[in-house]
Each structure stands twice: as structure tokens, then as C-alpha cells.
């Protein structure tokens, strides 16, 4: 599994309230939520973000509420991966559970600039910055999480298990 796209970069503590404010949580449809993705931190996000683009944050990305609407809005906005120095834990597991690829890599998060073109090899955890001609090594997913991602998320994996 691979991703390639242009980077949209943000700072520390990007919280779920700015990713998708509560005033839009009266719907649960991903396509609808995507229209307001990142609106309170970057009102122009939906115009700038193209399919396959990559979000980069620094520490504690996705802190705050448990709203799965946050990774869902990012996924449905066409973002192929989120890279951050660290993730807040509920956001981390929500992203995995819904099949939004995320990688923790402090070096990449700090070195990659807004607008750089980046590709990711999820199997090896290697992040390539084509603009700066540099590579960074992220921790690849452990096998347990790879299995969830390979199934397309926790629901699909559970569906297979329930069917037996």
C-alpha cells in the first residue's frame, strides 16, 4: 500500500474541534462532514486539498473529543495519509479502525514543509520527500494493525469473523 501527494502542514495540538467543529456533528455522513474538514484552523482547506494529499501535524494531532467524524472527514476529503510527531490516542485508534492511514514520525513531521510532495510506503514505513530529496523512516504498523488495515478497517475485519 502506498500514498503520494502534496503536503498540507499544521502545528502542535490540532484538536478535533478544529478538524470538525461540533456545529457540524448533527450529521454523520462522511461526504457531508468532508465539506467542513479543518474549517476552524484552515477555512480554505477544502479548496486546497486534492485527492491523495497528505496532512502533516506536529505533536498530539487529533487531541480532544472521541468524535470519529474527525478522521472520517479527513478520509472523505481525499487525504491519503496523516503524518505527525505524535497522535492523540483516540484519534489514532479511530483512524486505524476506519482505515485512514496514519504514521508517527517526528523527523518527517518537522522536516517536511507545506507544499512538499511526499510519498509513503506503508509496508516499510519509508517516507520520501520528493521536493527535498530526503527519506525518513517511520515505524511501520505492527502486524495486528496491518491486519485491520488490510481488511479495510475494523468493521470489515469483524464482519469476516462474525461470518466465521
Amino acid at each position: 500500500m502506498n500514498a503520494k501527494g502534496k503536503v498540507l502542514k499544521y502545528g502542535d495540538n490540532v484538536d478535533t474541534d478544529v478538524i470538525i467543529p461540533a456545529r457540524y456533528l448533527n450529521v454523520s455522513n462522511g461526504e457531508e462532514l468532508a465539506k467542513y474538514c479543518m474549517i476552524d484552523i484552515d477555512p480554505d482547506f477544502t479548496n486546497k486539498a486534492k485527492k491523495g494529499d497528505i496532512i502533516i501535524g506536529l505533536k498530539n494531532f487529533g487531541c480532544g473529543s472521541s468524535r470519529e467524524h474527525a478522521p472520517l472527514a479527513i478520509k472523505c476529503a481525499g487525504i491519503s495519509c496523516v503524518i505527525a510527531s505524535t497522535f492523540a490516542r483516540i484519534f489514532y485508534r479511530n483512524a486505524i479502525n476506519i482505515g485512514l492511514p496514519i504514521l508517527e514520525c517526528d523527523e518527517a513531521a518537522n522536516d517536511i514543509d507545506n507544499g512538499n510532495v511526499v510519498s509513503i510506503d506503508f509496508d516499510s514505513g519509508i517516507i520520501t520527500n520528493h521536493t527535498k530529496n530526503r527519506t525518513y523512516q517511520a515505524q511501520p504498523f505492527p502486524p495486528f494493525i496491518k491486519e485491520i488495515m488490510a481488511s479495510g478497517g475494523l468493521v470489515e475485519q469483524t464482519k469476516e469473523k462474525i461470518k466465521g
Partner: protein
Amino acid sequence: MGMTMTQKILAKHAGLDNVVPGQLIQAKLDIVMGNDITTAVALNEFKKTGATEVFDTDKVVIVLDHFTPNKDIKAAEQCKSCRTFAYDMNIKNFFDVGKAGIEHALLPEQGIVVPGQVIIGADSHTCTYGALGAFSTGIGSTDMAIGMATGECWFKVPSAIKFEIVGKKPPYVSGKDVILHIIGKIGVDGALYRSMEFTGEGIKELSMDDRFTIANMAIEAGAKNGIFPVDEACIAYAKEHSRKTFDIFEGDVDAEYDEEITIDLSSLEPTVSFPHLPDNTRTIDQVGDVKIDQVVIGSCTNGRIEDMAIAADILRGKKVSDHVRTIIIPATQEIYLECIRREYVTDFIEAGAIFSMPTCGPCLGGHMGILAAGERCVSTTNRNFVGRMGHVESEVYLASPAVAAASAIAGKIADPRKIGGNAE
């Protein structure tokens, strides 16, 4: 190597003798909870799994508390989908308007959560129940869906920070000041992925309501859970509220902690978190002159009876500033009734505050107290992120009910020790 209290609860529920930090486990769940916002997403995911019934109709809890009473048509549709699901699935613990209260005050009050359990809730403040010596953590809608279908959840076993609580709590310092102080000290990611385990002789100084407030905000330090030992006060609370039997877990004496931090209650002051992060704390003497437009006293953090009591004590016989809208929200119907019995409602209304039915409403900028651009609110809630309670140019200052009530009177952030209460 010994295990922490959290690790022992997780090991037991995973059917293992021993677990170590970083280990991925599958644990059996005692309670799976969701609210109107997160259940609306979870029920669709639940159906996609192919499951036709929940794993246990007594162990799934749905509370309609966020956008209720329905704030608009879309919220009404969302609540309707939750309601239909709850009835179809024969969910025993379904709380609709009339029975509902704010989930994290309601579940302990109704005796649904007790010590030693493993609880997941599709709401980040589910960590509240750690006050009862349970492992309790916030998860998302997909985890809720899978939890409802299978009665299990995957976890990465956390390491822990130990907080040794010592000393005696001064007047007008509450659980809120303790947790704001801790978050200010370690930062909003200071306990990321980890447990916050509270221990020490100072815990007896903390009422159960104080402990609920402290455990509630563990998530604001990034923690997976916050947990308190099960002492006499905790056992008394559990027995008063629940008929369930429960297991008491204790951390091993040789348990390893990433860090050990001592918190001396006697050194704490009323504390305020300035915009726009909970770790941006100042003690009350450092706040300066901050004029305010609104005060909110309530939420899963501070909507309990002791919070109402201190607010009533400060507001009784006084008037809130003409320039401050003061909104007081008891967390549950039972707390509401108790406020009537104790005549706090009279105190609030005569002081010029509004007293509303239980709802999460204003805390997350849902309804019942949205802020306009440039407005400032002192709030007993848990988050002060950009736009949390309304316009992106509004500001939220987090504080205890005592500071909030004193500030409502002063029209600016104020020290409750200077405004004073009637009980002095």
C-alpha cells in the same frame, strides 16, 4: 515485574495472568456506552458487521445528552435513529429526554458503573469512571459498534504515571483546581497513551465528586485513563448507588511507573486555564483583569451536586453582573431535583442566573449558550480549544464552580476567596 492497577484490570479482562506495557490485548467489556452524536455513527457500523443483536442488552448504554432536547431537525433525526436502534435492540439502559442526564454523571449515579470494570464509551470523557477504580476509556464509534457486537475491544496496555497526592486541601480549592494544576504541570500531551494513577494519603481529602472531576480531565493530559484506588469512600459510593458486586484491584507494590509526581494539595490555589489549551494555566492571583460575557457552571466535569452547592453558596443573596449571562446546568435529573430540594434553584434565579435541564449543550458549542466573536466565557467545562463554545474568535477560560460563580458576580475572573460564600 509487578503490574499497575490498570494493567491488573486489563489482564483479568483479557484472561491473562500478566500483561506488559505495549502489549496488544483483546479484553472483555463490562459496559459499552455511546451518546446521541457517536451512537448515530456507531449504529450504521454495527449493522455493517452483520450482527443482528448486541452482545448483552444490560451492558450497552445509550444516553441522548449532547444535542438534546433536539436542537435542530438534523439533531432530531440523529436522536431518532439512536432511539429506534435502542428499542430494536432491547437496550435496557437507554436514557432519553426525561431520564437522561450528562452521561458521565449519570452512569455512576445510576450504579451502572462500579469498581474493577472495563468500560468503553464513545465519548472522550469516559475516563471519568476511573474515580471508581474501574478501567474506563474513550473510544470512537467504530470501537463502540464492535464492542456492542462482540463484547470485546482491542487495547494496547499502557504504562503509567503515578501521582502521589499529599497534604490537606485549602478552602475554595476543588478537584478542578487539582486537575488543572496537573495538566498545567505536565501539558496536554503529558500523559499521552498512558494511565494516570492517583494514590497517596491525600486522596481521603478528595470527595467522590472531586475524584470524578479529576479522572474526567485525564484525557486533557492525553491519558488513556485516570484511576483512583478503591477506598472506603469509593466503596460507600458504589454500594449506595449500585446493587452490582464488584472486584477491587490494587497496583502491585513493585509496579513500575514511567514517572512519579507528588501533588501537595495544601500548596494549590484556585486555577484557571486560559485560551486555547487546558495546559495554559494560571493561579488566580496571576489572572489579571479579564472581563467576561458569560459563565457556564455544569458539564460532565462540574455538574454534580457539590458543584451546585458551592455555586449556590457563593451566589446566595448576591447578584450576578448585569453584563454576564450566567448559565447553570445540573448534570442529571437527580441532581436537578436535589437542587430544588435544597432551594439552590431559588438562589440561582434570585441571583440572576438561568437554571436549565441537563444537557452537554454549551460545553461543545452545541446549543444553550454559544459565544459570539470576541466574547469571553468562564466555564467549568473541560476544553478551551479555538471555537469550542462558538465563534473561532471567542474565548473560554476553564475554572472551578467556585471561581465561575465568583466571576459571574464580579463581571471578570475573580477569586472566590475574595468574593466569599455564605458558609464562611
